[in-house]
């Protein structure tokens, strides 16, 4: 059952992501990308990581993409649906990188000898302890970086 759900969700995610890349209209692309994030969140839930699933929706679908949408709506884009699709030249670097990633993934899967550990649900307490004790320094550094971004935005937005 879970296996089939995984394949259905993965297929939905891949299709939505491909549409998000090829769609010419940025607002439609955002809708596809949000769909893809939802499928990804459901996959995280299936993989016994409910916290990550919730944060995927709260942060990526609910905050980051909403801000993208806000910016796109504020700008007048004219008629993006009349724009030309990217040619083969634009696609080439992405295709080369895609082949490299696919090759690496195939090698990793075929050469793997250890079996995957049995999935178990990671509790919120365990998750938080790992986040703030084991990776505490990294968390602090990342939050400092976010603070710099806020200060930078304030500087750019201040009254001249």
């Amino acid at each position, binding site marked *: 059952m879970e296996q089939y759900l995984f394949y259905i969700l993965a297929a939905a995610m891949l299709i939505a992501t491909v549409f998000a890349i090829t769609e010419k209209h940025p607002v439609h692309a955002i809708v596809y990308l*949000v769909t893809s994030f939802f499928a990804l969140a459901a996959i995280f839930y299936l993989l016994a990581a409910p916290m990550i699933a*919730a944060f995927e929706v709260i942060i990526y*679908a*609910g905050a980051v993409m*909403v*801000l993208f*949408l*806000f910016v796109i*709506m504020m700008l007048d884009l004219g008629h993006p649906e009349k724009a030309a699709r990217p040619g083969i030249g634009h696609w080439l670097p992405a295709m080369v990188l895609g082949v490299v990633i696919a090759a690496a993934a195939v090698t990793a899967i075929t050469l793997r000898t250890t079996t995957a550990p049995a999935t178990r649900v990671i509790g919120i307490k365990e998750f938080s302890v790992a986040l703030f004790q084991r990776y505490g320094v990294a968390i602090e550094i990342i939050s400092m970086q976010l603070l710099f971004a806020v200060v930078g935005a304030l500087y750019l937005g201040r009254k001249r």
Partner: protein
Amino acid sequence: MSIISLDIAVILAKIALLLFAVLTLAAYLVFAERKLLAWVQDRKGPNRVGPLGLLQPLADLIKLLTKEDFRPLGADKWIFYLAPAMAAIPAIMTLAIVPFGAPVTIMGFEVTLQIVDLNIGLLVFLALSSIAVYGVALGGWASNSKYALLGSIRGLAQLISYELSMGLSLVPVVMLARSFKLSEIVNAQEGCWFIVYQPLSFIIFLVSILAECKRIPFDIPEAEGELVAGFHTEYSGMRFGLFFVGEYINIVVLGGLAATFFLGGWHGPLLPPLVWFWGKVFAFAFLFIWIRGTMPRLRYDQLMHLGWKVLTPLALVNILVTGWWLVMRV
């Protein structure tokens, strides 16, 4: 296998019951709002359809269903059609995590009066409320109208801003209950409601959910006086109805969650738990309508100022103080 199918049957029955109850409640909330506002403004309110006007919601429903399904020229077809659903579905889905009564025993089986009791229940609520933005934003954008677009841009900014203070005001609740599970949050308040420990959190949460419902004094995304009807200006018939019903379901759900987080959920002396829970929901709905009848609308800059410079810093300080208090108490 039979136990699993029984479980599924119980869950389906609970979903059907709750959906029926809440949809009826939402329809009558519209009626109650019109009546109460009329009393506040010294009018009579709807009193023509049925005894005391009680069949008014039915008449409204028939009107909405038989209206023309209109799409403005140049509107983005699919997004325009989907946006009302995007607005209503998160509100309906949030119903699934609300514990609306104490567990009851039916024919020897213990049935919890909550559709699902997730370990991450509170996070699911935050996730769904952050998704609710899309209906407002995309609906206004897809309408190809300047009023609708202005309304949806305002709605976006408002919902993002107040989501933050809403989420932060719930952190002390989690700290006190030591769980994200809504049933455990309710049970942690058996002796004493969290509003006693966290009055500030409660006020921040209340103001934030008023803003999340887009109601007066936070109704700048709709602002009839300046934007016609804001983000749903171009909608007609049942598509408009879906925006409208979604808003009233949201009031019921958020009232229920406010009761769950701060007023002890279904706990209370003497009366049965179901009465306590729904009584608290009605009290919140009444408060919302009362506020609508009393307050003027905030200006955009006042709204942003309140959200970012007052509520969010207060919520952060409150978290620090709560943490300090919890550590000192041990």
